[in-house]
């Protein structure tokens, strides 16, 4: 089961310029856009609401199947902005197994802003961030 081989990995992209947050509802300075974390886990909740949609994802510890999974919060764009890029309110549902790439919070708490989501069918949902190499 994919969730059982869950992996949360911190990846440093030296030499890659990541996309930068836009003018938006709030500052994104709390996120570290030079880092990416990949979360493999199960959707607990998909919150489709203004001003930002959120995914709550439960990420098991890959080294300890008995340990309680860690809950991560993934901040997305607004519903309309996501809708324009192919997302729908039913794009994710509780129990879906997904892989999420995020820019994590700088303060180390288990949350970040979305970079990309790969759905249960193995396909990327919506339009992930472009990067310049």
């Amino acid at each position: 089961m994919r969730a059982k081989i869950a992996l949360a990995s911190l990846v440093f992209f030296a030499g890659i310029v990541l996309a930068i947050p836009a003018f938006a509802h709030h500052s994104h300075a709390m996120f570290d856009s030079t880092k990416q974390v990949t979360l493999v886990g199960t959707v607990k909740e998909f919150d489709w609401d203004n001003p930002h949609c959120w995914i709550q994802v439960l990420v098991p510890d890959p080294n300890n199947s008995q340990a309680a999974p860690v809950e991560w919060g993934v901040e997305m764009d607004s519903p309309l902005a996501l809708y324009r890029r192919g997302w729908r309110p039913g794009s994710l549902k509780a129990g879906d197994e997904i892989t999420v790439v995020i820019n994590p919070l700088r303060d180390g708490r288990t949350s970040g802003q979305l970079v990309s989501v790969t759905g249960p069918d193995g396909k990327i949902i919506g339009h992930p961030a472009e990067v310049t190499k």
Partner: protein
Amino acid sequence: MIPDFTGRIVGRRALPAIVMALIAGCLCPARAQTSSRERIKAFAKLPDWSGFWEWDVLVGQADGQQLSPEGLGKVQAYTAAVHPAFNAAWQAKYDQAKKALDVAVAAAPDQPPATYQPCVAPPFFLATAQPGIYEWRVTPEETTLISTMGSVRHIYTDGRAHPPKDELWPTNMGDSVGHWEGDTLVVDTVATKPEIRVPERDIFFTVIPMSDQLHFVERIRMVNRNEMQIQFTTEDPIALAKPMNVTLTWVRVTNTNRMTEENDCDPATDRNPVVNGRFTTVVR
């Protein structure tokens, strides 16, 4: 005796007046019809700005709100352009405010200072350079600009002037009057909130109080079917050494045919509340 329209009985001397009133009443629909035809002709002279528009820096923005490299380049160019040439007195105010902002950002990078009010429609002139979708409603009497971020601008084109100064007060959008020069809408705006928000990095703004002579002129036109340009001039002879000129580009939105609100917040559920003047993130 003749009953009047209220059922009262009136004398014969009132008859001519009643007949005139009836004739006038009969003419009203015809007059309205003429007016409608004239209005339709007036509509036909206006450019077709229908459809949805967005600020060009946001094209290619990703699901997590990150700009594309192209968008980032554009926003950096805009940021450089939207920097007023203050006179010496106002430059000192700017330097002081900018230093205070830098100190505030450095003090708590995890909780960036809120240099604007979230979940409230952005003020003029940021209202023309914000995320979301714009829609124009162009009529002979008024051009209205509606944004999914909640702002609505009323630009009166019926020939009126601004109200006298003692009938104006500062508002987010100010008071706008406009006229058409061919297919270009020329807009004059006064009575905005007396401040300028200078974009810095991320979405931090240095907020500078301006004088009561702050005044904006826009020249807005559709360059082609898929692009609009807003030439923006900011004037304040008390605070600026020279007017500030910026050209914003909007592009046609092709990936939706609906506008919905996207800036409303429920304080009970907002996960990015402003606490002590700083943005925070609620982690469940």
